């Protein structure tokens, strides 16, 4: 059987660098992973973990730097090339084929015969599955499997193709606890048989429970590595940077309720939120912290009517107008604005000019476009928001910071509630400060803001209260004044939730 070939690989990365435009996603990263070990890669979103793993598995090629397998320099040109070298990657979303039978999916990647030998393949599939105690029927269909089983299928497939090193990207998201335990047992068994394993995660406890060594990435750089016993505090510090002393925040007086969320249940693709309660008062800023995909985006979308809750209700204003089940357009009419993170994909229309955007967002009426009026409007907004662009500039020609300013300029006035995903992601300091000044101006006039950010400093600096999301669990609102970066980091990584619940019970 192919899986029983020589199973040992020493992986070494030397000075891997990869840039996307001005962004250095990986900056001179070097480390080595010996065979028979499980190496954890920790880091927050955008730290460069996925880029690095995609380089190793042939999705990207590095701008500079070398990959050495068993001491030999190799060039990995494609994912197929990677598996030929013995590197298999298990993606966060399984790259399988739901409409196929398990056995068809299993043999898809194999090279060689024109006509697949089902008898042999089924036998080998069963042998492999037995070895790890997986119970998957090769004749069932992939879309009948749970996420955990699909993962198991992927592992079997990669082993069968001759993988000697496995990369797992966030493998514990969306699988049940018993499946997670089985996965960990499998990985440990594989490592004991000589397999090299790279385990990418942002969950501290998983990494601590499984890995022989952990490397931490931050902003594209390798900031450090640690051997067991792991020190959670030190890992958090490496992931998020040193704690920065914050200026004390002026305690604002908040007005009446703007948004009242009553026991809301939400269901996303791989995430569920149950029984969320929250009251947002006029002028208040709520920060949503958590790793990407922990439920924040789902929640924020539901606040704008972009996703519908399966239980509970959303009410707007003092008079508790029930908006549950209403569309986004109705939320918008009632003074709710939504600013997505993917500016050019979800918020702006590439190919149209700034003037045209202002026409669209203002909802100007009539048959023929009043160009003069539109241009005057565009000019005044461009000036008011200090956008570096002309009325006839297309939005994609603007820099990220100016696109974000344009998004703010497109918001109508007055507004009750502004929902923002990553208000300053990828922006320079000047734009960041400018954006928040503009948002704070709105707050002073009674608008509430709920925002998502991966930047803990931003969360702590600008929020009045913070909700932490972890795998669909939502913390009670925490006063930002009482939080530290370290505590927040631990909560985001899934630590300390028991004490949080105890505190909530006593409060």
């Amino acid at each position, binding site marked *: 059987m192919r899986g029983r070939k020589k199973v040992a690989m020493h992986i070494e990365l030397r000075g891997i660098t990869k840039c996307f435009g001005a962004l250095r996603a990986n900056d001179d990263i070097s480390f080595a992973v010996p065979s028979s070990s499980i190496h954890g890669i920790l880091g927050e979103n955008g730290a460069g973990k996925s880029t690095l793993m995609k380089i190793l598995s042939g999705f990207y090629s590095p701008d500079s730097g070398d990959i050495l397998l068993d001491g030999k320099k190799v060039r990995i040109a494609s994912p197929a090339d990677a598996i030929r070298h013995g590197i298999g990657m298990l993606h966060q979303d399984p790259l399988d084929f739901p409409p196929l039978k398990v056995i068809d999916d299993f043999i898809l990647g194999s090279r060689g015969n024109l006509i697949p030998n089902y008898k042999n393949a089924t036998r080998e599939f069963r042998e492999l599955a037995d070895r790890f105690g997986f119970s998957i029927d090769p004749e069932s269909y992939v879309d009948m499997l749970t996420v955990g089983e699909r993962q198991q299928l992927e592992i079997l497939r990669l082993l069968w193709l001759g993988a000697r090193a496995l990369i797992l990207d966030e493998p514990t998201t969306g699988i049940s606890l018993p499946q997670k335990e089985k996965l960990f047992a499998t990985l440990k068994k594989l490592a004991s048989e000589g397999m090299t394993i790279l385990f990418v995660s942002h969950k501290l406890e998983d990494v601590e429970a499984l890995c022989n060594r952990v490397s931490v990435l931050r902003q594209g750089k390798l900031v450090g590595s640690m051997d067991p016993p792991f020190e959670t505090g030190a890992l958090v510090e490496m992931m998020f940077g040193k704690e920065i002393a914050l200026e004390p925040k002026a305690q604002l007086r908040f007005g009446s309720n703007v948004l009242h969320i009553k026991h809301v249940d939400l269901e996303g693709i791989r995430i569920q939120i149950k029984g969320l309660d929250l009251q947002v008062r006029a002028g208040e800023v709520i920060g949503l912290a958590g790793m990407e995909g922990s439920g924040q985006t789902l929640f924020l979308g539901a606040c704008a009517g972009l996703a519908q809750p399966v239980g509970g209700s959303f009410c707007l204003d003092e008079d508790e107008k029930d908006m549950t089940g209403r569309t986004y357009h109705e939320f918008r009419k009632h003074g709710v604005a939504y600013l997505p993170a993917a500016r*050019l*994909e979800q918020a702006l*229309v590439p190919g*149209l000019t700034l003037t045209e955007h202002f026409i*669209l967002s203002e909802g100007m009426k009539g048959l023929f*476009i009043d160009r003069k009026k539109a241009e005057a409007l565009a000019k005044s907004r461009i000036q008011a928001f200090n956008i570096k662009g002309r009325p006839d500039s297309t939005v994609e020609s603007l820099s990220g910071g100016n696109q974000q300013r344009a998004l703010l300029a497109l918001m109508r006035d007055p507004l009750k509630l502004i929902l923002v995903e990553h208000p300053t992601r990828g922006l320079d300091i000047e734009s960041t400060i400018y954006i928040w000044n503009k948002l704070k101006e709105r707050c002073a006039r009674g608008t509430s803001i709920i925002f998502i950010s991966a930047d803990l400093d931003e969360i702590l600096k600008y929020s009045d209260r913070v909700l932490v999301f972890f795998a669909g669990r939502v913390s009670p609102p925490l006063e930002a004044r009482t939080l530290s970066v370290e505590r927040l980091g631990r909560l985001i990584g899934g630590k300390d939730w028991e004490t949080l619940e105890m505190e909530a019970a006593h409060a």
Partner: protein
Amino acid sequence: MRDNRATRLLFQVAAILFALIVTTGVLFLAKAQPFAAYKYIVLGALGSWDVVTNVLVSWVPLLLATSGLLVTFTVGLWNIGIEGQITLGAIFTTWAMRLMEQSGWNPTLILILAVLAGMLGGALWAMLAGALKTFGGVNEIFGGLGLNFVATALNIWLIFGPWKRPGVASMSGTIPFDRSLWMPIAQGSSRLTPATLVMAIIGILVVYAMIEGTYFGLRLKAVGKNARSAHILGIPTWQYMMSSFAVCGIFAGVAGAVQVTAVYHRLIPSISSGYGYLGLMVAMLVGYRASLAAPVALFFAALNVGSIQLPIVLKLDSSLAGVLQGTLVLFVILGQGVRSRILKKTKVKS
């Protein structure tokens, strides 16, 4: 390479050259004299006032179909069902004509009502494709193709069933209308109908003004370029998609009505004459810009009419025009693809 007018023109000229080379190759394979063939096409399209009027007769429905398609392309939809929409326009027109034939009303009034009925038929058929897309999740290409077959079947059934000629049903269609109910023909011409020419010209002007100058057109553009952002900006996207289907269906319906009232004066099995598909090609060739639609549609109509006499003089099939049109569109689109790839590369390098 720079991104400017000159390089764009260069690629377009190259595309025309390549299309000619390929077509010439096809002609060699068919053991024909390419230059003779091209000469006869030019003569066949421009040789006399009579053939020029034939080109114009062909131009009208093609330009109408193209105009409608520009609207659906603007909102990002591939309305391949336009063939069926033309057919339904023709069917509704014929139906209206049959109802009013014996009424003794003013012929002008009857013709106006018949064209309006055609608009209604095209619009309904288009909105059916739109509803399938919006509420049924059926891609407009598949829905449109399916509806095309249904429209053809319906047409054939009518011609051979309820509307068949007295005595024996025939592939030559229903019984022609009385001459008084034909679209008025220009003096000194055998087929040219000024009224339909005016309709086509007004049509393309309306579409141009709609896309370039109205709030409606701007919102269509926004939905077409990025439906998600358009939704966030407050545009009800599905309503705009449905409206664009309806507008395109109206234009297709007029094209069908023109075919019935001004060209064939009856309903025939192939009443849409492939103008829908040809319109798709014209729209692609002009890069979905309304300003170029009229001349390019005229060129395509000239190719169609010019190649009609090829079978007679050169024993070649008249589908040669289709070969030339098809390869032309292919090479223009290929040129755009190659060009944007090269532009991307030079951008990365710099």
